[in-house]
C-alpha cells in the first residue's frame, strides 16, 4: 500500500526535500484512524486532538529514525500509544478492571445509515449499544478491539503498537469481545421486550 511504499521508495528523508512531501501525504492519510484510536483511549475530544497533534509533531521530528521494516501507519499508532501511556503515567493510572462510564463527545459522528426509518432506528439503537459497550470497556480491552476490529491491524502489529506479547493481544481480544457481547445482551433483551409490547 502507499504508506509502505513511501519508506521503500524514499529511503532517507531530507528536510524540506521531496521526501518530506511523501512523508506528509502518507502520514496525513492516517489521520482519521489515529484520531479514532486517540478517542478510544482518551474518550475526550480535546484530549484526543492533543494526542494526535503530539503524535504528528513527534513523527515529524523523528521521521529519519523510523524503522523502515515497520510500516508508517503502524509506526504512527505506536507513537500515539506511547504518548498516551507516558501521559497516563504522568497523571493518574486507570485502575485495572474498572467499570468505566461512557464519555462520548457530542461532536463525534458515527457511521452507518439506511433509507428505511424503522431499520435506521433499530440500527441506531444497536450502534449506540455497540459504542457504549466498547467505550465502557477497560482501556486494555478497548485498545485491542479498536486496533483489530476497526483499524484492521494484525495481531503482530497490535502487539508491536501496544508493546505486549501477541498472546496477550489474543487473550485481550477474546475477553474484550466476550465483555462487549455481555454488554450488548442487556439492551438487545430490552429492545425485544419493547417490540413485544
Amino acid at each position: 500500500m502507499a504508506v509502505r511504499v513511501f519508506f521503500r521508495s524514499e529511503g532517507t528523508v531530507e528536510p524540506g526535500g521531496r521526501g518530506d512531501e511523501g512523508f506528509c501525504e502518507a502520514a496525513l492519510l492516517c489521520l482519521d484512524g489515529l484520531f479514532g484510536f486517540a478517542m478510544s483511549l482518551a474518550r475526550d475530544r480535546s484530549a484526543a486532538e492533543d494526542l494526535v497533534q503530539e503524535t504528528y509533531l513527534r513523527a515529524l521530528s523523528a521521521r529519519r529514525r523510523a524503522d523502515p521494516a515497520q510500516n508508517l501507519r503502524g509506526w504512527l499508532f505506536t507513537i500515539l500509544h506511547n504518548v498516551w501511556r507516558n501521559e497516563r503515567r504522568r497523571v493518574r493510572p486507570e485502575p485495572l478492571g474498572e467499570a468505566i462510564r461512557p464519555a462520548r463527545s457530542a461532536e463525534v459522528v458515527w457511521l452507518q445509515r439506511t433509507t428505511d426509518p424503522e431499520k435506521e432506528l433499530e440500527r441506531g439503537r444497536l450502534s449506540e449499544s455497540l459504542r457504549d459497550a466498547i467505550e465502557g470497556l477497560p482501556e486494555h480491552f478497548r485498545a485491542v478491539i479498536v486496533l483489530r476490529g476497526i483499524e484492521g491491524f494484525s495481531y503482530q502489529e497490535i502487539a508491536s503498537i501496544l508493546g505486549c506479547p501477541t498472546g496477550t493481544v489474543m487473550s485481550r481480544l477474546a475477553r474484550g469481545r466476550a465483555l462487549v457481547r455481555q454488554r450488548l445482551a442487556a439492551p438487545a433483551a430490552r429492545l425485544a421486550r419493547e417490540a413485544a409490547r
Partner: protein
Amino acid sequence: MKALDCETLGLLVHPYVDGELVGEDKEAVETHVQRCARCGAALAREQELLGSCARRARFTGRPRACARLSGACWRRPLPAPGNPGPPS
C-alpha cells in the same frame, strides 16, 4: 489434517475470524464447524460482531487541531476523509 475438539476450536475462533489462521489450522476449523452446529453458531456470532465493529463503531470526527497543525506546520490541506485501511 488434524481434527479439533470443541474446546480447542474455542481457542481458535478469534484468530480464525481475524484472518490470522492459515493452512492446516484454518482448514481444521472449517472442517470442524461444518459438522458441529454449536461451534458453527459461535463462529458466526464472532464474525457478526467483528463486522458490526468495522461498520458501526468507527469515529469519523475530523480533529480541528490537526487541520490547524496541517496548515501551519506542513502548509497543506488535509486529505479527504477516509482510512488507508489495514496495512498490507
